[in-house]
């Protein structure tokens, strides 16, 4: 392993010094490319009040490749599957090396505020979200209470 690139050092410093409201991202003690992330459920969303754990990993060719991000906390969301994988364009084909960890986490937070059942990853969730939004939101709230509020 080569030394940590300046870019990662700077981004980490900035994440620590000027954290994004509602998001905490802390690098792992043993691996500076691995971040423990906590995103608070946005207000006025079914995820409000929840604390969602995520893991974020910067691949060796970051920032040429997007960070790998995954929800660890279970979440009922049409764009997040059972394994916590996230359907977000900037994590895939819309990634640009000018984007940062910060931008990625903000986009994920925004995705919680605005679920998009038309571009689903979790098909059953998306289906319900389209057919019966009220029930889907009830489910999301229930999951948030059950999995994202234990402490």
């Amino acid at each position, binding site marked *: *392993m*080569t030394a940590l*690139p*300046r*870019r990662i*050092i*700077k*981004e980490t410093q900035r994440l620590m010094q000027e954290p994004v409201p509602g998001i905490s991202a802390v690098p792992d003690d043993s*691996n500076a490319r*691995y971040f423990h992330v906590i995103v608070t459920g946005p207000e006025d969303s079914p995820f409000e009040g929840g604390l969602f754990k995520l*893991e974020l*990993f910067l*691949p*060796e*060719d970051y*920032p*040429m*490749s997007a960070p*790998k*991000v*995954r929800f660890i906390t279970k979440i009922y969301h049409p764009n997040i599957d*059972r*394994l916590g994988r996230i359907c977000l364009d900037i994590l895939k084909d819309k990634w*640009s*090396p*000018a984007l940062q960890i910060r931008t990625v986490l903000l986009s994920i937070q925004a995705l919680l505020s605005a679920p998009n059942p038309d571009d689903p990853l979790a098909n059953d969730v998306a289906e319900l979200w389209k057919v019966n939004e009220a029930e889907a939101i009830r489910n999301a709230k229930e999951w948030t209470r059950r999995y994202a509020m234990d402490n």
Partner: protein
Amino acid sequence: MALTGLGRYEDAILSFSVSVALDHDMGAVRHEMTHALHRFLAGAPAGYRARCNSLGVLAPYSLHGRRPRFLAASYPALNCSDCEDSFSGEEDFLQVPQKFSSTSLGGPAAPVVPQESTRLRSLVERIFQEVEKIKRMDVKLEDLVVNPDLVEQSDFDCVLCCRTLWQPVTTPCGHTYCWMCLDRCLDYSFACPLCMTSLADYLSSSQKAVTEVIEHSLRLLLPAEYLARQVTHHQELSELVQLWGGQVPVFVCTTGFPGVPCPLYVYEPRYRVMMRHCAEAGTREFGIVACLTKDPGNKSYAEFGTMLEIRDWILLDSGCSILTTVGVRRFHVLTRGERDGYDTAKVEYFRDQPIPADKLPDLKYLHERVRPKAWQWFNSLEAELQSEIVRAFGQMPELEEDWPSLADGPVWTWWLLAFLPLSQELKVEILATTSLEKRLRAIDKTLDRIQAAAVIKQGQDVAVATRPEELTSNSRHQANQTQQTGESLYEQERQSQHTATSSHQLPHPIFNASFLGDNREQVMESS
């Protein structure tokens, strides 16, 4: 120069004139200015051009490396000795520009400049105004430069590497990055990282050049940062020269063989970076190892490989490249590393064991038996296949006189192994052996088995069972991607690092099947 790149020739000429006024060192500016002027004039209204022709002047702008005299004359106040020297040799300059010079000095009432050329006139006006401005602020200028408090260091940071810009390049969309950082991005996508504008045209027109203004300001305003960045840059390069910190870059693809050409098609971003590093470091060498996905985890690529020397390098417009390489020596992987997404390894080179004198006669006898057999088999192949082999790996190498004492034995054995239908694992095993005798016996047995298989095929008219090894490795990778496991991303990442890359190989594997099976005892004699 960025302005020239953008096609804004008027503005370019204007800023060139201003920079000449500001800075007496005009060497670099001069050529660029000529170029911009050339373009500006070429784009001037048709009436103007017609007039030039009627005057018997074909194209005043076709004189490369020359700067029309009228521009020199436009700053009488700045006629420093530099200027005099630079233009003294241009007395023979064409008449039309000389008339311009009097024109521009004489103001807008120009007898020669036709009515249509208002653009030119207004340009000259602008140059005058700018130069006047500079003259007026000449004293203040120094105060400006000396005040470093006004300069924000981060203004000169590259968004990609978060360091001070090094060899800054400005894209047509107006974004500036380090040259090397932008190059790396373009390996992945033609979009500008900041605004997503396609840079494909910009790339193909190869207009990329260091933005002098920024480079210059950096040197002037942030000398310490500039110097520090320069040091890091050179450190990074020398790091590469030291073979990636004692390691060699490793191309995970196929088995290469000593003395045998290995044509490669490089399209994967990480390998494009690797090849550029090879070029920047000036080493022209990298290791090639087979991708073995049979036992995943830390042993995803073979433990033995071959150093390849780059002989020829064709860079395609797409950023991909075709390499002509040849194997130089074999290595054993000791430890594995990574750099910018590609593999590196600490390696140990090895050679064949010397052949004891008493074993030599037997070995020579064996060799005399196997070489003709190999030749015979090669000749029995379909003509099309033969020529494909020759295209990729060359003709069967001549036998070296001193073959028993060579580090890797006679090259023809490796040439044959390059296309013998053996599994990747077996090829690696044969590469790893330090005994020429074992290698010859392995070839011998393989040829026998091919013969036997051919006989069976003829007799039964049944296709030989095929096991497409290259496909297995590819589909494994796909399986990996769709696999739904809950394991940590980090683990997934490690596993997906080494994906099957057999398609890098040119031409596509001649034998997709290994009809010899995997039973190594039948080919390789256990020691």
